């Protein structure tokens, strides 16, 4: 651009003004806006916030989406590990089985034999299903009976035959029906011939893999089939994405119902006792002097009470009748015993803030007590209170879990994450998923609240506020 351009009239008119150009400072952020801005830049805190929202959704909306009854027992799938949906073959209702008897074979040996041959022609009669496995075999000459064993592992000769199912006391009965807690997995059936009293050292083993099946009347009862369905048809069984527990109850549905107990106690109890602590501590701190001394002595005394004992005493004192879950007594006990920590903290804050210059200034300008408390003291303690609250939630959830774990918490059949862990720990070695899922949910919840608490501490810390600007 050349300076030699001739100047014209418009060049001397004032430049168009805008509000932005007049702005000398950045838009002022309130304390909370600033804290929110800093919290948003903390990835871990935001992820935990989403996790908490997700848990709330899981608890509140979950049972609407996953409509399985948490108390219903699926007896076809007990202690089922998490798996894809399973199917079962429909079979006719149970017909009593009479073992075949070989007419022209003696039922007892003529003399006690020294040796017996092994059972021959051991085979499965009909289809092997989880409803029944029928075995038949050819009679052994001079045998006075047969012992039938079942094992989940392949026996080595005569070792590890497994569960003794039955001893038949006649040489001419050559059939047996097993209906004992069959699952869809390989079994090894072994038959040992006897002379009527003692077993002989010969064994015949057969491998059988029963097919998952369900009787028509059972299927109709569970709403899986209609009475018109025919035996032989394959129908889908109830789906348990997280598996089932030792009573065949759906773990996902129980986790959702348990979340209502665990999160209810974990959120409501801290909310109430932190609120109470704020009032108590704020009152003591603001009044000061003798009243403060007395109030804080009492708080000290409550802190020193043995927590577990009083927790249990409260529970018993409230009297839990049969069929009640015991959530309320636990809530009350938590509130009555845990408030002093917050009270102490808030009192300390109030004592500090009371002496600050800006309070003095507000008072000089004519601010009354209620104005000072509402406008200056409470907003300035809010940060500490919020942080206490987020850290109080995990500790309350832990306490609930601990109490339920030792059998002092929520009474069965109401599930809570803690009592589910308690049940899961008993079958930890054989069915680890029954412990894993509730423990995982407790851990995730506690983790999320802890990380959010960390993020809030950093975001609300006034020292940090000056540091990064």
């Amino acid at each position: 651009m050349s300076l030699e351009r001739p100047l014209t009239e418009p060049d001397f008119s004032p430049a168009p003004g805008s509000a932005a150009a007049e702005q000398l400072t950045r838009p002022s952020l309130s304390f909370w806006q600033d804290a929110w801005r800093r919290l948003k830049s903390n990835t871990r805190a935001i992820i935990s916030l989403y996790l908490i929202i997700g848990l709330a959704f899981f608890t509140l909306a979950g049972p609407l989406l996953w409509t399985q009854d948490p108390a219903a027992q699926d007896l076809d799938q007990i202690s089922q590990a998490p798996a894809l949906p399973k199917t079962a073959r429909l079979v006719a209702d149970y017909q009593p089985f009479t073992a075949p008897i070989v007419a022209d074979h003696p039922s007892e040996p003529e003399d006690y034999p020294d040796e017996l041959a092994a059972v021959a022609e051991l085979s499965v009669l009909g289809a092997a299903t989880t409803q029944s496995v029928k075995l038949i075999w050819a009679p052994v000459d001079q045998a006075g009976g047969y012992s039938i064993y079942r094992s989940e592992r392949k026996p080595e000769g005569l070792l590890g035959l497994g569960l003794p199912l039955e001893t038949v006391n006649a040489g001419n009965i050559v059939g047996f029906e097993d209906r004992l807690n069959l699952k869809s997995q390989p079994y090894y059936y072994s038959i040992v011939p006897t002379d009527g009293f003692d077993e002989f050292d010969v064994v015949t083993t057969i491998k059988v893999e029963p097919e998952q099946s369900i009787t028509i009347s059972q299927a109709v009862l569970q709403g899986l089939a209609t009475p018109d369905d025919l035996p032989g048809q394959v129908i889908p069984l109830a789906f348990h994405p997280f598996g089932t527990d030792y009573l065949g109850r759906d773990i996902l549905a129980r986790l959702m119902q348990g979340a209502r107990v665990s999160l209810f106690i974990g959120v409501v109890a801290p909310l109430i006792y932190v609120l109470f602590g704020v009032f108590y501590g704020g009152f003591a701190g603001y009044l000061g002097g003798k009243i403060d001394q007395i109030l804080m002595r009492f708080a000290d005394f409550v802190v020193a009470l043995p927590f577990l004992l009083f927790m249990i005493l409260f529970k018993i004192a409230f009297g839990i009748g049969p069929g009640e879950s015991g959530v309320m007594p636990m809530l009350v006990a938590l509130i009555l015993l845990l408030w002093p920590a917050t009270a102490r903290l808030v009192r300390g804050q109030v004592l500090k803030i009371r002496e600050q210059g800006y309070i003095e200034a507000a008072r000089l300008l004519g601010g009354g007590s209620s104005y000072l408390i509402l406008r200056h003291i409470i907003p300035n303690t809010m940060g500490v209170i919020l942080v206490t609250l987020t850290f109080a939630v995990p500790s309350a959830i832990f306490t609930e879990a601990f109490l339920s774990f030792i059998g002092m918490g929520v009474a069965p059949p109401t599930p809570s994450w803690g009592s589910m862990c308690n049940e899961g720990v008993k079958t930890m070695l054989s069915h680890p998923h029954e412990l894993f899922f509730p423990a995982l949910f407790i851990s995730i919840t506690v983790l999320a609240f802890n990380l959010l608490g960390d993020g809030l501490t950093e975001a609300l810390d006034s020292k940090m506020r000056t540091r990064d600007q």
Partner: protein
Amino acid sequence: MLRYTLGRLLSGVITVWFIATATFLAMHAVPGDPLMNEKATTPEIRQNLSKKYGLDRPLPEQYVIFLSNMAQGDFGLSFTQQNRRVNDIIRDHFPVSAALGVLAIAFAAAGGILWGALTALYRNRLPDVIIMFLVILGISVPSFVFAALGQLALVNLNQWSGTSILPVAGWGTLSHMLVPSLVLGLGTMALLTRLMRSSMLEVVNEDYIKTAKAKGLSAPRIFFKHQLRNAILPVITVLGPQIAAITTGGFVVELVFAIPGLGRYFVQAVQQLDYTVIMGTTVFYGAFLVLMVIIVDIIYGFIDPRVRLK
């Protein structure tokens, strides 16, 4: 110093008395009594039993008798365990809980201070990230899960090696204590690591560290003499209540590993309303907690000379 200690002890005694009174009243407010579980089938037997234990007297009189006995250090006979004195129960089973707790605290404190110092030293680098991740895990997983996993690990270890390297449960030797105390200390260790880390990072910015650097002190000397010693203070404050909490709160670990500690008797007594055992253990635990806090405050004074002035 002596005056301060005596004053604290006196207020401690008053606190214990308060706890004892509150427990006494709460316990008697609960419906039922320890004879409920007895085979006191006829009213006569029941009457004799309550006469023997002094339950037939009015409550204030029972309270006075209890207090005077307590002052002499006698907590009386257990209701549910025949011919066993409460003092004997405490004497037999508290050392077990205490040994477990002391080892757990040793693990927790050593680990917490070491890991905390390490994370501060390697701030925002790989060791820090890894350790802090484990710490978050340690804080978020309930202790009974750790206990169960610890036992599972022992089972697998013994199965894998073919011999019993470490016993899975029970009590008696040091090898019985190792894993339970580690499990018991994990949560506290995580807590202390976090505390130590933030405390170390706060201390780094202090003026006296700059002064020390300006004086030309060697890095290890600054680290140990100035940074670590100052950063350890908040850890020690937390340690007092934590010692009491761990020694008295190892119930879950005691349950999982079948350890005959006092916690089990305490919970059992509460369930069966065994008045004398409840009172004995509560007063004992209360006194222990109060004493621990006082001891820690005194130790604090030795480490931080500024506190001694008070």
